[in-house]
């Protein structure tokens, strides 16, 4: 029996050896159980001990006899032995490792390496270390397991710190985004089933139409993709530049328009005209069609001028001028200018067509050299009567008009006219002469060419001769001659204003006539305020003023009522400081008196000054005299305490540091501690703050919407933790970890791309 139990024990041990590496404590428990079981078995087996053993012994012997080669007989256990092997190897016949090795060397299956290894082992004489104790073993296992667990748990570190730093946490964590989902997500497994559907979808697919409710069609997507970043950038840059240029030009134009210098504008206009002439000439040469168009434009301008009352000397300004014209040369001239402008504009451009014809004719008949025309131009340009609006100018004006308000355009025209007037004010005498010449010439021309405008050219030579003589006079006077469009001027019909010519035999007469006519028509109606002035009577200063102002005002005057202008004018009127009327002053006075009465006794400023002085005096160092007469020496009438004593008992307080409001006249700063406030003040620096300044700044920044914009308030008052009403908040799951990682990696990637793109720039 004992032997059997021994055998079992050894079995157990081998089992332990086999499984110990896996889970020792479980095994440990097993062992205990088995021990218990073993004990039970022992108890039961003790009963039928005798016969069984003998039988078994027999059996064993029989088995032993079967294997003939068996050398070792099973040893009978006779004495107590510590080691008892399954193979009944006793301590006496031990099997050496060397024996086994010997057999290995013989077997061919063993590799050379193992053989070598074994030999090395044989040579070494160190003993193998003892196996660790169970406690130690377990400790190591625990340690390893803990390290593993700690490492595993540490992967949450980043997300935890992230959450700790987060300004706002929203729970539950894995919320699905609200709002409608794209249709692709909702119906994933949907398929076209009916033949109709299939047909439709095949058609859609064939036409590259979006089958599901995609935002863009494939074509659109392709186009979006096709416009790559570079192109977009270039286009953006271009547009930026264009915008910048536009704004620049706008600003420039505005600046120029604001410039008041007449001279500047004159020069500008001249340059413009010249430019235009040049362009037009080129256009005539290169592209006659375009030139024709230009001419057409001029024609249209003319038509407009004819339709409108511009430059008809029927406006307010004109009327005022008409009144003054009798006495003032300048006014007369100005009117003349206006009429001229009108004539220029309204004159029919037969010339353009006729010129072409003529050119053709010339080309056919006799080729005149260019300089002939040039000379003509010069002569023509020197003609002051002809001087006036450039024939191209109206087109320019027209363009301007389309851009600006019509009134402004009109004002511009009048301005121009006045400029001319102003410039020509000096040479009035010469002008008179010229006018005479001109009228004569016109008469002659009329005589010569009374049939048609086309024949005008024939008489050109004659005119030329005449004009050469005129030229000398004109050249002296006309320094600021304007570059008129000679080609129109040249062909400006002698029949340009036959009716006018008839009337204007004498400039002055014409003027008077015009003046008379205007008066007769609408003098009284339109100018009711203007008192009919006695010419002899010296005008009152006010009147003079108005007379002076009138031209300047007339510049700004427009036809029709400009709402904007009217409004702005009104505001200007308000701005003008009005002389207080009697009633006003009374009221004001009343109020002031009232206030004065109400605060009669108050002299706040002096009160304040007094108080401040008082405070300053309080703070000043005082001398306290503590000498007691008669103390320690004789006292009495006429006796003074000794000097030494006085010095000894006189206490001076120290000079306090200078007051903070020393240099602030209107402030009193109290440097005393206010006991009423102290309970509300923080006595020590609270924990998260590192210095008082930090804490103070945190307190100083207001949070409310009185001081901050709505968006800022929302941002600042965001609650730290947001939970949803009635939603179960699940513990953090692995998805969060992935999400956090994604976030981090995305951030890192974006940073990388940034750094990569920067050098490229």
């Amino acid at each position, binding site marked *: 029996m004992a032997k059997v139990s021994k055998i079992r024990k050894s079995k157990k041990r081998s089992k332990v050896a086999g499984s110990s590496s896996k889970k020792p404590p479980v095994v440990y428990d097993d062992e205990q159980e088995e021990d218990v079981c073993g004990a039970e078995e022992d108890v039961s087996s003790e009963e039928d001990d005798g016969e069984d053993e003998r039988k078994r012994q027999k059996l064993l012997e029989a088995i032993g006899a079967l294997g003939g080669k068996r050398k070792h007989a099973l040893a009978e256990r006779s004495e107590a032995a510590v080691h008892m092997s399954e193979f009944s190897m006793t301590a006496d016949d031990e099997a050496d490792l060397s024996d086994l090795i010997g057999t290995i060397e013989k077997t061919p299956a063993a590799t050379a390496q193992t053989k070598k290894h074994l030999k090395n082992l044989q040579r070494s004489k160190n003993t193998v270390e003892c196996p660790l104790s169970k406690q130690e073993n377990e400790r190591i296992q625990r340690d390893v397991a803990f390290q593993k667990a700690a490492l595993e748990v*540490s992967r*949450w570190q980043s997300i935890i710190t992230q959450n700790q730093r987060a300004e706002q946490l929203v729970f539950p964590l894995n919320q699905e985004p609200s709002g409608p989902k794209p249709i692709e997500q909702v119906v994933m497994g949907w398929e076209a089933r009916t033949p109709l559907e299939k047909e439709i979808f095949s058609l859609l697919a064939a036409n590259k139409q979006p089958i599901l409710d995609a935002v863009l069609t494939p074509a659109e997507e392709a186009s979006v993709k096709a416009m790559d970043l570079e192109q977009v950038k270039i286009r953006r840059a271009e547009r930026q530049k264009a915008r910048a240029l536009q704004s620049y030009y706008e600003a420039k134009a505005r600046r120029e328009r604001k410039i008041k210098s007449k001279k500047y504008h004159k020069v500008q206009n001249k340059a413009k005209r010249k430019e235009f002439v040049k362009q037009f000439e080129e256009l005539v040469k290169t592209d006659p069609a375009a030139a024709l168009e230009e001419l057409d434009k001029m024609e249209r301008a003319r038509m407009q001028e004819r339709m409108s009352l511009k430059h008809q000397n029927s406006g307010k300004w004109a009327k005022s001028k008409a009144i003054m014209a009798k006495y003032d040369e300048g006014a007369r001239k100005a009117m003349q200018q206006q009429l001229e402008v009108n004539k220029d504009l309204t004159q029919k451009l037969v010339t353009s067509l006729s010129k072409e014809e003529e050119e053709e004719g010339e080309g056919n008949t006799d080729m005149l050299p260019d300089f002939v025309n040039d000379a003509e131009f010069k002569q023509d340009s020197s003609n002051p009567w002809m001087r006036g609006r450039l024939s191209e100018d109206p087109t320019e004006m027209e363009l301007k008009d389309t851009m600006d308000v019509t009134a402004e355009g009109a004002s511009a025209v009048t301005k121009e006219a006045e400029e001319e007037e102003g410039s020509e004010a000096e040479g009035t005498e010469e002008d008179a002469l010229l006018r005479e010449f001109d009228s004569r010439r016109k008469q002659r021309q009329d005589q010569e060419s009374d049939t048609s405008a086309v024949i005008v050219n024939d008489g050109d030579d004659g005119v030329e001769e005449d004009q050469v003589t005129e030229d000398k006079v004109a050249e002296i006077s006309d320094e600021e001659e304007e570059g008129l469009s000679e080609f129109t001027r040249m062909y400006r019909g002698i029949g340009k204003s036959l009716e006018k010519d008839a009337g204007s035999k004498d400039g002055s007469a014409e003027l008077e006539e015009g003046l008379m006519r205007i008066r007769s028509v609408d003098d009284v109606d339109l100018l009711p305020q203007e008192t009919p002035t006695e010419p002899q009577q010296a005008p009152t200063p006010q009147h003079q003023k108005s007379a002076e102002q009138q031209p300047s005002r007339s510049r700004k005057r427009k036809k029709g009522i400009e709402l904007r202008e009217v409004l702005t004018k009104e505001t200007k009127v308000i701005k003008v400081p009005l002389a207080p009327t009697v009633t006003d002053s009374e009221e004001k006075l009343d109020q002031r008196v009232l206030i004065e009465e109400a605060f009669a006794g108050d002299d706040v400023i002096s009160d304040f000054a007094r108080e401040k002085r008082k405070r300053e005096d309080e703070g000043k160092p005082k001398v306290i005299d503590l000498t007691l007469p008669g103390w320690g020496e004789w006292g009495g009438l006429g006796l003074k305490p000794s000097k030494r004593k006085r010095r000894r008992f006189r206490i001076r307080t120290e000079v306090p540091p200078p007051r903070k409001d020393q240099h602030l006249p209107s402030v009193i700063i109290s440097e005393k501690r206010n006991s009423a406030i102290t309970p509300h003040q923080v006595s020590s620096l609270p924990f998260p703050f590192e210095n008082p300044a930090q804490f103070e700044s945190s307190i100083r920044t207001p949070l409310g919407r009185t001081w901050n914009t709505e968006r800022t308030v929302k941002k600042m008052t965001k609650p730290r933790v947001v939970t949803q009403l009635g939603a179960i908040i699940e*513990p953090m799951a692995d998805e969060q970890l992935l999400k956090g990682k994604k976030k981090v990696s995305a951030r890192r990637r974006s940073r990388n791309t940034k750094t990569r793109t920067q050098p490229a720039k």
Partner: protein
Amino acid sequence: ACSKTSRQLTEATAAFNYNTHINACHKLKQVSNKRRNSLKVLLQHDSPASSTLRSTSYVVFRFQMKVKVLSRNPDDYVRETKLDIQRVPRNYDPSLHPFEVSREYTRALNATKLERVFAKPFLASLDGHRDGVNCLAKHTQSLSTLLSGSCDGELKVWDLTKRECVRTLQAHEGFIRGVVVRYCGTSFFTVGDDKTIKQWTMETPGYGEEEEPLNTILGKTVFTGLDHHQNKSVFATCGQQVDIWDEQRSSPIRSFSWGVDSFSSIRFNPVETDLLGSCASDRSIILYDMRESTPLKKVVMTMRSNTLCWNPMEAFHFTCANEDYNLYTYDMRFLEKPIKVHMDHVSAVLDVDYSPTGQEFVSASFDKTIRIFPKNDGHSREVYHTKRMQHVICVKWSSDSKYILSGSDEMNIRLWKANAAEKLGVLSHREREAANYSQKLKEKFQHHPQIRRIARHRHLPKIFSFYRFGFSSTKPGSVPVLSEKEKHVVSVVK
């Protein structure tokens, strides 16, 4: 289609007309003592609507003049909408709004006072148990369901919205030591002093049917604690050793013991779901990994921990409720000293539960109070107690983080608000904005003594003040100064 759209249009305009008509009527009433001419003008100028509207309102006006009808001022019953509020452009120039600090301070002070005024945390008491409530369990899927086990082995299922018991069953002989709801919410487990683990279905048995457990496992020893895995059909019990059970088997799949013969509580880590922590009677806290064959680590403290709870948002943080009146928050990787010691209780802390947001936890104590601690604050932000509440044995924080449930000795379960002054239910936009603003103000000025005084003031029985200021009998300097964190840890056993 055209007619249809036109109909829609007319409908829409009709609706619009009605609304504006009300306004117009109101205005008309306001100026009814003025001349009619001016009224006409007013209508034309004020109402931006179509001419039809103008005419209708005018008609109504005349109608009103002639016939007396019941009419009320819309201002009395129509709520102010965003359309009524004039958008006033604001000038944020700081010189126009002086004294911002003092004004905000006043506001903060008022907000703090109002918070104290409105702090009424106690919501309901659920009575019905005939012995002390020993354990509580939240339902994993339903917010309104609560399970409670009492010391006489009776288990009750509560409907919190109705505040009534919906089911009662005699689960065990003697104490019910632990209740836990399976993660799916269809069944729950109980352990009791009768050495059994029972699984019950969540559904109430039909009329006439008896309450019978789905499964019963007979253990060899008494079980003192129970917890279920977060998402596997595995649960753990503790008693003389810690056992991990598969729901399908009647014998544990793992058993851990480490020289201890008695455990008081076991908890699964809700984040790193294979980890467990347990409190043992030898004053130690032991950590386990369900997959390993051995425990992981053990920390021995000066006094015994009653329960522990893992932070549901931070995988490696747990807090244990100790007999020495304190709670300790540990990082499981560094058990050498707690990362925070939470003091304020004046008697043994019996239970602790984290808010599902992981920002705060609630503790129940033998001193008849519940305290709420911020997870990284040494002192509680709130203390709840009532005259009738005795030793609080168990406490749970509801899974929407709005409520706290406590079970106490005197057989009652109490429902509290997690934030005492919070308004429950749906808040209007402006209410929420105001609440957020005042909350931030309170935070901003929390260090100012007056505000702190008001915010921290609680009416507590006298005993607390006595404990708080305790006596020290040792001569100063005779005992070496140890930080509070180091003081309570005896050793860490690997």
